[in-house]
């Protein structure tokens, strides 16, 4: 088993680290405090072709591999979780389903725009009454001649208001339950589509999280993604990829907090010596570092599985479960090592702890991941 990165992956990692440090980190605190969308990062992601890292060049992608893309999310999350959320939702959730399930026409129409970043992508599954129970979709789509008419609401939609295309799930045949859900590519300018209220969140403050409203929204028939009734499968397989993205984000947040803490405990003195000279600090650092590295291995394994295996459901669920709990645990302990200062906004670990929490919730809570993992183990 080879645990080393290829030369190109190594160089890409250096690029992402350098880019994150110089372009993303300086704005992280401001974006958090002002709760504003990371527009500057988006512009630079477009310019330097970060918007379609794992996708084929024929569609305007960079032609890299999945692991390289996940490393990009990881490095961005190290300094700013908000920025990594935007890129991950666009790439894993907003673009991948079209690559995997789109018709040649849909691919030709949307992928070049998404992969170059001319369009920002988003994904809309969650509803007020369909969270973990995502099969309980209430948004309806009715075929009417050459178009579908969509009615309903989606909530907690990442990149909402900034995205140009949304992968939207709606019931086309309620009697069939899961098998009655269909997926659609909805453009922001389609009649009857609008963006509702913006959520005020605990963390990832700069990420735009809003409600979507469909009021007799007209979606051309050719924008049905996959076949009617395939929506649930499309949603679940897309989420497999999305979960790896969240795992990458979680690892990044934990690494970022740990780096900040290592710096802090070397400088901060109590009882006449730096905190780093106390055994409690040393053991905490050792423990956290080991967990982070273990999480990173699960993440990279899942990224590899995504690329080489037919299904990566298990690997993705385990990576997300473990990486998210690691992020929460590590950031909490990092705040603790910072003491009172860690609880203030003067140090970034406060933000990182708030940001870490979402990784245990979105794209399937930790409990959902346990359901997925145990289902396969006990079948």
């Amino acid at each position, binding site marked *: 088993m080879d645990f080393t990165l290829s030369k190109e992956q190594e160089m890409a990692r250096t690029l992402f680290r350098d880019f994150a440090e110089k372009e993303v980190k300086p704005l992280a605190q401001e974006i958090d405090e002002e709760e504003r969308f990371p527009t500057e990062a988006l512009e630079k992601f477009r310019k*330097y*072709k970060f918007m379609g890292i794992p996708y084929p060049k024929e569609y305007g992608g960079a032609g890299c591999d999945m692991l390289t893309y996940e490393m990009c999310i990881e490095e961005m999350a190290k300094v700013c979780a908000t920025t990594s959320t935007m890129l991950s939702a666009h790439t894993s959730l907003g673009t991948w389903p079209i690559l995997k399930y789109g018709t040649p026409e849909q691919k030709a129409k949307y992928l070049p725009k998404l992969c170059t970043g001319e369009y920002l992508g988003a994904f809309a599954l969650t509803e007020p009454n369909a969270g973990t129970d995502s099969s309980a979709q209430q948004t309806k789509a009715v075929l009417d001649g050459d178009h579908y008419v969509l009615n309903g609401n989606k909530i907690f939609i990442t990149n909402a208001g900034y995205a140009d295309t949304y992968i939207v799930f709606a019931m086309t045949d309620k009697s069939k339950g899961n098998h009655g859900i269909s997926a659609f590519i909805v453009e922001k300018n389609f009649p009857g589509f609008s963006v509702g209220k913006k959520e005020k969140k605990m963390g990832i403050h700069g990420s735009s999280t809003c409600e979507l409203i469909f009021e007799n929204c007209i979606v051309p028939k050719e924008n049905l993604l996959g076949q009617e009734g395939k929506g649930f499968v499309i949603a679940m397989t897309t989420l497999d990829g999305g979960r790896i993205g969240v795992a990458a984000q979680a690892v990044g947040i934990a690494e970022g907090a740990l780096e900040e803490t290592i710096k802090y405990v070397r400088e901060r003195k109590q009882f006449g010596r730096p905190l780093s000279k106390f055994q409690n600090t040393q053991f905490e650092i050792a423990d956290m570092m080991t967990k982070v590295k273990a999480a990173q291995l699960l993440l990279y394994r899942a990224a590899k599985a995504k690329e080489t295996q037919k299904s990566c459901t298990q690997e993705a669920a385990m990576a997300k479960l473990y990486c998210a709990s690691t992020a929460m645990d590590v950031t909490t302990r990092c705040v603790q090592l910072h003491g009172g200062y860690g609880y203030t906004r003067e140090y970034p670990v406060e933000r990182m702890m708030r940001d870490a929490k979402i990784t245990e919730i979105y794209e399937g809570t930790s409990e959902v991941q346990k359901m997925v993992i145990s289902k396969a183990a006990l079948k």
Partner: protein
Amino acid sequence: MNIVVCIKQVPNTNEVKLDPKTGTLIREGVPSIINPDDKAGLEAALRLKDTNGAHVTVLSMGPPQAETALREALAMGADDAILVTDRAFGGADTWATAHTIAAALKTIPYDLIITGRQAIDGDTAQVGPQIAENLHIPNISYAEEIKVEGDYITVKRQFEDRYHIVKAKMPCLITALSELNEPRYMTPGGIFDAYREKKIKIVTRKDLDVKDGDIGLKGSPTRVIKTFTKSPKAAGTLVSNLDPQEAADYMLEKLQEKFII
């Protein structure tokens, strides 16, 4: 237009640590980078490519691992890369290096050659101008702004307290300052293409029309006696309002005072 940018791979001196016992540099584990002045030269070439259209070749003389610097340049947008490498070139001083690089340049087409002003690991600032001498082409050093119009290049040549605007007919060579620009990032796709699709042309001793006595350690007239950091000199005395005769007398007196003449 064919632009050739000469780059050198150097240790990132920001990350070099001194061995506290011996006082020497610890080079192990220090990442290698493209020399900053050279990277600015590459960026200048890529901007000329963006605005005027050009074919940009990067060339480096060094050990096989200098390939990484060339791949990085390709990932930034250079079209071709050449690595001039051979054990016979080892130990070269600036004279032998410039002689070897010039010989390599003679084998390819060029209108403009860009080198960095100097490398952060040697700080001589000699190789660029020496390449121009070897090729018998004009050289403009310390370029801070570059404009191309037809066959001519106009360069703002920066000094400590002033600048010159210099115009030259191409082919010519310019040496770039890191202040020239902010080099672009690589792109992720550019990195993968640089490794998976592009080939680096290897040039060795047998490919070049050079004599053994002019390359490598043998061809290097420089002997390094010792290296040290210069201690700053005290500020000089400014004497003004003297006519030429008085000035000459003044200098003569000072030189005699210090027993120099």
